[in-house]
Structure formats: C-alpha cells, structure tokens
C-alpha cells in the first residue's frame, strides 16, 4: 500500500491525541470508570489506532511513527483487555483483619510442610549435639551460644546492670532488618522448585534443635523458654510463613504444564505470596522490638514466669488470629 505519510499523519493525529488523553486520564486514576459512550469511544479509538499501525508497519519512512503507534496501542490494549479484578486501594485494616490470615489459611498445606521441615531439622540438630557435643561449634552461628549454657545463665543473671545499659534501639532495628532479609531470601529461593526454603528451614531447625538440646541437657530449660518464647513466638512462625510462601511459589513450578502452565499458576499464586510477606514482615518488626527490649532481661530483673507467660499468650493470640481472623460467617460466604 502506498501512503502519503504527511497527509496520513495530518488526518489521523487528532484521534491519536484524543486516545492519548483518554488513556492519560485512566492511567492517572485507575478507579475511574468510563460510561457506555466513553467506553465505546475508547474502543473505537483503540481499533482505529490499531488499523493505523497496520498501515504504517511496512513503511520504511515511519519508524518513529510506528513506535509511537505501537506504544499507544499497547497502552490502550492494557486498559481495555485488563479483566483481572481491579485492586482496591491498600487498607492496612483490611490487610491485617482479613487478607493476611485468609491467605495464610488458603495455603495451609505449605505451612505444615514448613513446620515439618523445621521439626526434622530440629530433631537432626538435637541429635547431632547429643551424639557429638563438638558439633555445636560447627552448627551454631552465634558466639554467645558456644560456651556452657550454665556459665551464660550465671553471667547474665549475675550482671543485670550490663543488660540494662546496652543500647537496644539499634539492636532492635538490626534484628528486624536482618530477620526480614532472611525471610525474603526464604521466599525468593522458593523459585528454585522449593529447594531454597527446604534448605533454609532445615538449617534453621538444626540451629534451634541444637540450642534447645544444649540448654535442656544443661538443666536450663526455664532460662531457654524465658529467653526464646517472648520473641520466638512471633519470629519462628514468621520464618515458617516465609517458607510457606516460598513453597507456594516452588509448587507452581513443580506442577509442570498442568492448569495452564507454571507461569499462569505463578501469576495466580503471587498475590498470596506477597500478602504473606507483608504479614510476616509486621510480625518480625514486633519480634525485633520484643527481643531487644524484653527477651534480653532475665531474673532477677524479670521473672521467668512472666516472660514465659507473655510468650505463651503471644503464641496463643497469634494462633487464634491466623486461624480465625477474617473468617466469613456462613451467610456471608459467596455462592
């Protein structure tokens, strides 16, 4: 087809500009809905721009015009063919009272898998330290866990002033950011067919099991519970939820070409993974505050019964929240 480009541009440009303006308004305010006339006009302009694009596709003289029209058609296509439910504005209240616990419950199998892997790691860690106490030096990544539990307990209970004087805000922020990074890494390595969370959760379990066995064998169970429960009751479930999200992504790849292919399934599963990450990040912020400002105080400053009781209340509240928050009553359920 022979095209007089200048006349073509002169004739069609007003419609391209009109389409551009309509798209600009729609993109700037995603909540805006067009009335019937507006929708029909948008569709007409989109089809017209598409037809114009087809005309200039073979024109050597119009690489810029072609690029402009392709960009215009692409924008219009995104607006017209987007049939996924429009996301409403983010509401923290709705997120914490409904979205997060509901996403957790929707993917419960992945959570139990994360629990099972962590428990297997804990059993392995405890067994390794029992049979070979030297293994502690290899398994535990923290210096303060290397020595004898009895000596540590005596040292910390004997010098409460030292703990009271320690800077806690910076420590708290470090714990929050570090734990959130670990949680994100646990999630994203799920992309390796779930292998990443499998390794990270198992290793986390090994460390937990080794520490637990070490302290229990030394008769320091109360100290251990008082030290770990206040922050661990949120921190450990948060890491398990990160594993849950990682397994959720990995499972979509492992299913192969079923249900429209792995990319289609990933697209469907990704919103839940994002919700889980948002929720666990909030949990880790709380855990970081508790660990820095509460967990580090021991008897005689803070009785262990109080700390253990606090941790148990937190754990029960968390379980109740994740199990029941935001459940719809039967009459509210959609058909």
């Amino acid at each position, binding site marked *: 087809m022979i095209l007089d480009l200048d006349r073509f541009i002169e004739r069609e440009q007003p419609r391209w500009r009109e389409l551009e303006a309509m798209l600009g308004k729609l993109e700037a305010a995603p909540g805006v809905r067009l009335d019937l006339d507006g929708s029909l006009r948008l569709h007409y302009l989109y089809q017209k721009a*598409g037809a114009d694009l087809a005309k200039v596709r073979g024109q050597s*003289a119009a690489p810029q015009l072609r690029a402009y029209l392709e960009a215009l058609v692409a924008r219009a*296509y995104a607006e017209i063919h987007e049939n996924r439910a429009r996301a409403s504005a983010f509401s923290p209240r709705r997120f914490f009272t409904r979205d997060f616990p509901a996403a957790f419950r929707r993917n419960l199998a992945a959570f139990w898998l994360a629990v099972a892997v962590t428990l297997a790691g804990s059993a392995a860690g405890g067994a390794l330290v029992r049979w070979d106490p030297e293994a502690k030096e290899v398994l535990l990544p923290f210096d303060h866990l290397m020595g004898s539990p009895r000596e540590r307990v005596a040292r910390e209970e004997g010098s409460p002033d030292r703990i009271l004087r320690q800077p806690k805000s910076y420590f708290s922020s470090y714990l929050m950011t570090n734990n959130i990074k670990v949680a994100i890494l646990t999630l994203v390595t799920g992309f390796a067919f779930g292998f990443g969370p499998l390794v990270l959760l198992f290793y986390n379990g090994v460390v937990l099991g080794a520490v637990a066995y070490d302290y229990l064998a030394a008769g320091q169970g109360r100290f251990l519970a008082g030290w770990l429960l206040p922050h661990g009751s949120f921190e450990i479930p948060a890491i398990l939820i990160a594993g849950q999200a990682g397994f959720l992504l990995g499972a979509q790849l492992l299913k192969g070409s079923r249900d429209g292919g792995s990319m289609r399934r990933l697209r469907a599963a990704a919103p839940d993974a994002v919700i889980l990450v948002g929720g666990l990040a909030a949990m880790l912020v709380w855990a970081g505050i508790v660990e820095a400002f509460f967990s580090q105080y021991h008897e005689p400053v803070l009785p262990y019964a109080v700390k253990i009781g606090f941790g148990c209340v937190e754990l029960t509240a968390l379980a109740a929240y994740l199990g029941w928050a935001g459940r719809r009553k039967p009459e509210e359920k959609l058909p």
Partner: protein
Amino acid sequence: MTGAATHTAEFRTPENLVFSVTLAGPAIRFVAWLIDMLVIAAAASLFGRMLTLLSVFSEDIAGAVLTLTYFAVSVGYGMAMEWFNHGQTLGKRVMRLRVLDSQGLRLRGYQVVIRNLFRFLDMLPAGYLVGGAACLLTRRCQRLGDMAANTIVIRNAEPGRPDLAKVAAGKFNSFLGYRHLGARLRQQVEAGEAAIAFQALLRRDELGDAERVALFRELKEHFAALAPFPPEAVEGIPDEQYVRNVVDILYR
C-alpha cells in the same frame, strides 16, 4: 503473546492487532540500576547528615532510625517508584526503560512487589550475576524477578522524528518532482534499510574515503533497484547525494 524476534516481544490482540515492544538488555538495565543505587546512596547520605542532630540526644536511636530508613528505602524504592510511576524508577526513566506486564496488561501491585523482592536473589553472588545471566539466557530477557512476577522490561520508543537538518539533501532534491516514485520508495524500503542509510549519512566522516565511496555506491544500487528514478533525475548525482535524496524523501 506470540513468538518474538530477538530483543522484541510481539503481541497479537484478540482483535488481531499486532504490536511489538523492544526488550531492554542486561547492560542497559544494569546502568539504570546503577543510577538507582546512586539515588538511594545519595538519599541515605543526606538522611544520615540530618540524623547527626538526633545523635546528639541519642546515638542509639539515631543508629536505629538510620538502619530502618536505609532498609526501607533500599527495599521500597523500586516498589514505590515502579508502582506510582507506571513501571519506571528514576534510573529506568533516564535510560528510557519501563516495566510491563508480560501479557501487555496493566502492571499490578503484587507484580511490582514480587519483582523487587526477587532482587535479593538476582543480585547474588554479586553485581546482579544471577539476574544478568538469566537475562542473557531467556527469550524475553527476564531476570528471575521478572519471571516470578510475569513482567518484562521494555525500551520506550524515542519520541519525535530524526534530525533531518544533519542529512538534508540541500535546497534542491531532484527526486521530489517524482511523487509516485517517492511513494514507491517509501513502500519498498524497509525501516531497517532506511535507518542504515540515515546512519551512514550521519557518520560519513568516521569512514575512510574508500569505505565511504563503496558504502554509498552499495546503498545507491540497492535503492535504485527498489525504485528506479529516470535518468534525467539522477544524471550527474554522486552516490552519496543519491542516498541523501532518498533519505530526504523517506523521512520527510
């Protein structure tokens, strides 16, 4: 989306319209990322200076605020910019890149979050090696974050038309009198061929004499075969001027 040629993604809509977008390669994306890193570092540095006032009262709290702010900015910068700026961070805007849904649809919030969280994996072991390798190996030049979020990164079309003043045919273009041949030329010459001729004129001074003569002779013969102008229009015109006239017609 249908099959794509190298570095482009082609979409066929239900109305049978076809449009393509140019995919961004790992090198240009790396430059955009470097710009973003500079922006984040500058923001962190500025914020750190502001916090020196707070550290007079409590170094502990100042350290905590700095740690949390840096973390929030480094993780949230990409998410916030891509969400509020239609798929563009500052680095991407400078380099004319944009994140797009892989099916050409509107970018969703969860996609922005997922692709930015996956930076933790793509950055490993250093300098985006994992992400860069994935970019090189995948058909649509996607890092792992793009695959997980179903997104692609495209190069935005350059707006405007080429600067013809630099290659203009001069006051008199003997081909302009043959409008039907000019139209045929526009129809026959492919966009890539037109671009080559345009670039040859722009960069003529970079060529040696012999190479320049050979190049313009080849171009002239190619264009003459596609749309032969009558002898009176081409008589006495050097090959380079012939190509200049052709480009003048093609782009004007």
